[in-house]
């Protein structure tokens, strides 16, 4: 309460000295927004600090205490992560000699572990000589995300780009053609697995999600609607782990004898089914946000259901749901780490296995930090993108 009071009086006080005279007919809001900005002047930083850091004795005390804590923590972290850190260790015939790391234990980080194991963490048990292939796959994925993010490519050709890229990824990972050595799925691992599970999950779940969302909004086919509701609510009501367990222990029971797809494919199916239910809700949000007039206009033109959906409804609705779609994708990207529980070599499990090496067992903190940075880098970029897009959409909608 006191906050708002002070703000009001401050605004009034400023109004008295306002150099810009109020012009009749111009709404007050933009002027108020101008005013809310920190006072400009020769001592802008000082004025800013006084307003935002030291506005009262309590605020000053909190600021100082926080600055002290942050500084102490930052210095301690810098000491550990940079100053006293061990960056590399000598290689001996028996493997790396980690005595320098043992000496620095508790004082400095052991980045030498990452240096020694980074190939395993990134690519898992993939054939060592062939690891340039998963490296290209990672680059392809990043390129695919970058292209999909660009407005210029938001048209039908994007679908083609996705098909080509995903096929290329499959060829590179499996090999067996064009002189590439065949690498079985069992030995895939690391970051490509994380990217494959989440991206293929999205690519296959999306069409499913659109159909389910349309089915759930169908008024003329109650039976289909019930089926869609059942699917969505059942999947969303249980944790992903349940589905993964199902994929690993129940899926073999469902299949005819002799047909036993490998673990990665089973997990991928589980993730697609999981993603489908969540994406269906996102798409349904977009369908509901579309003004009724659009449906009515399409009907007035005498379009059939599929023409109406394909030409009028979906192009607009899907555009609306891109920001929440990216957010959902960030969720899947993080959730793929759960496949660790059923023993699939994603980034996290590859990292965990890398430090079962007796030499590096004691350096989990460093490993977790590096993995966190990798996950963070992907998720942060995506979330910034989706937020920017959301704001832009909101601006266009207001116009």
């Amino acid at each position, binding site marked *: *309460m006191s*906050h*708002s009071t002070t*703000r009001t009086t401050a605004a009034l006080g400023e109004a008295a000295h306002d150099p810009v005279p109020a012009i009749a007919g111009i709404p007050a809001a933009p002027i108020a927004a101008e005013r809310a900005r920190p006072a400009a002047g020769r001592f802008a930083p000082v004025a800013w600090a006084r307003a*935002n*850091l030291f*506005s009262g004795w309590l*605020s000053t005390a*909190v*600021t100082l205490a*926080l600055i002290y804590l*942050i500084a102490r923590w930052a210095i301690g972290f810098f000491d550990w992560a940079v100053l006293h850190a061990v960056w590399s260790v000598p290689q001996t015939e028996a493997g790396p000699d980690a005595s320098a790391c043992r000496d620095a234990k508790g004082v400095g980080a052991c980045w030498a572990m990452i240096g020694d194991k980074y190939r395993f963490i990134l690519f898992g048990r993939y054939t060592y000589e062939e690891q340039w292939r998963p490296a290209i796959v990672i680059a392809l994925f990043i390129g695919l995300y970058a292209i999909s993010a660009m407005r210029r490519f938001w048209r039908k050709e994007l679908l083609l780009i996705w098909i080509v890229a995903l096929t290329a990824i499959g060829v590179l990972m499996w090999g067996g053609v064009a002189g590439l050595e065949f690498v079985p799925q069992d030995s895939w691992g690391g970051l490509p697995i994380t990217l494959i599970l989440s991206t293929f999950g999205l690519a296959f779940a999306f069409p499913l999600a659109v159909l389910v969302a349309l089915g759930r*909004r*169908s*008024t*003329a*086919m109650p*039976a*289909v609607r019930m*089926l869609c509701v059942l699917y969505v609510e*059942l999947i*969303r*009501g*249980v944790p992903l*782990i*349940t589905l993964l*367990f*199902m994929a690993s*222990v*129940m899926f*073999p*029971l*469902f*299949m*005819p*004898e002799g047909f036993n797809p490998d673990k990665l494919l089973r997990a991928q199916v589980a993730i697609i089914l999981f993603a489908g239910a969540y994406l269906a809700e996102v798409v349904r949000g977009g369908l509901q946000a579309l003004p009724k007039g659009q*449906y*009515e206009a399409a*009907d007035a033109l005498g379009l*059939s*259901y*599929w023409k109406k959906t394909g030409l009028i409804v979906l192009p607009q609705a899907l555009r609306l749901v891109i920001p929440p779609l990216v957010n959902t994708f*960030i969720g899947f990207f*993080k959730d793929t*780490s*759960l496949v*660790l*529980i059923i023993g699939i070599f994603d980034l*996290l499990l590859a990292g*965990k296995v890398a430090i079962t090496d007796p030499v590096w067992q004691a350096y*989990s*903190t460093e490993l*977790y930090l590096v*993995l*966190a940075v990798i*996950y*963070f880098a992907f*998720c*942060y970029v995506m*979330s910034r993108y989706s937020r920017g897009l959301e704001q832009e959409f909101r601006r266009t909608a207001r116009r």
Partner: protein
Amino acid sequence: MSGAVVDPRLSPARAAPKKGLSLSWSDPRFRNIVWQVVILGAVAAVVWYLVQNTSRNLAARRIATGFAFLGRTAGIPIGESLIGYDPAINTYGRALLIGLLNTLKVAVVGVVLATVWGTVLGVARLSKNWLISRLAAVYVEVIRDVPLLLQLLFWYLVLQGLPAPRNSFHPVAGVFLSNRGIKIPVVEWEGPFWWALAAFVVGIIGTVAWSRTATRLQETTGVRPKVWPVAIGFLVGFPLLVWGALGAPFAVEMPALRGFNFTGGATVTPEYAALTLGLVVYTASYIAEIVRSGILAVPTGQWEAGGAIGLRPGTVLRKIVLPQALRVIIPPMTSQYLNLTKNSSLAVAIGYQDVVSIASTTLNQTGQAIEGIAAIMVVYLVISLSISFLMNWYNARIALVER
């Protein structure tokens, strides 16, 4: 499936001459029925195919279906349970019940702590102090963008990295932090406490009754009698009085180091602590954003208008601002509570025995994969449905009645 959905607003106009269902492909109703039959038939065929495969596979592996295994002796060692358990005697059914209770223990504590911590963060994010709001923003951004599982593994590592009992951290009297978990003192529970608890319940009823009376008096006389002194009397004084009258027993059991381990007191295991901590830290980053948007959804003008009609700040908060903010907050908060509960299943990665962990051990031991997973699904569906039912009921209660 062409022409599947006919807009309900148009259909009566279009189907002008009302007649019975004609068996012609040009009748949209007939087409819809045919398509629905086809789709349902296809789904049923797939299900039937899977069931056939499953029963053939089960027969080949000599696995009997059914829930008879719940009555067999479990033999699963369980580290912590709220109810008594002995692996040599007790059954799978009881083991699963313990798993369920462990899940609920994490979920309930997690929801409460995450709400508190998330609210603090959300308010901090709106602080006029730039440093506080930036820190809260950075926290939210960083925590959200790192997988929960990685965070749980990290917290578990931290808690396991604590020193052995002999060198344990000892921040305040009676609290020990070691790699065996967190030791805390417990108050020995005796008969009079039950009576004090009963008195507290009576106090709640009394407070509600007095508050209603106060409202009625306010409506008739225009003056609201003070409620809070009576409330304190009912809620604190009365239980204390009962407890004192019964001899005021009070004994605290302090944990103490004996040899290599602790005796006395209660233990919070590292697994439970890591799981709860991880879930709270993670979920709070989402709750913070929800709280922030809820607060921002109420314009400042509402505070000012409340003040202008002569209400006290507390009353403005309770009667004007909160009802509006909660309307924005409750629905997304519900889904966060559900997420926290579902995420508690990650316990299996750090060795906390929740319902998923125990069910997966059970299905490994007995081979009853379908029944085990069905049990997990039922448990989570029931929890999810109850939370959403509860929150929907609450939401309906606080929703503003719009004209």
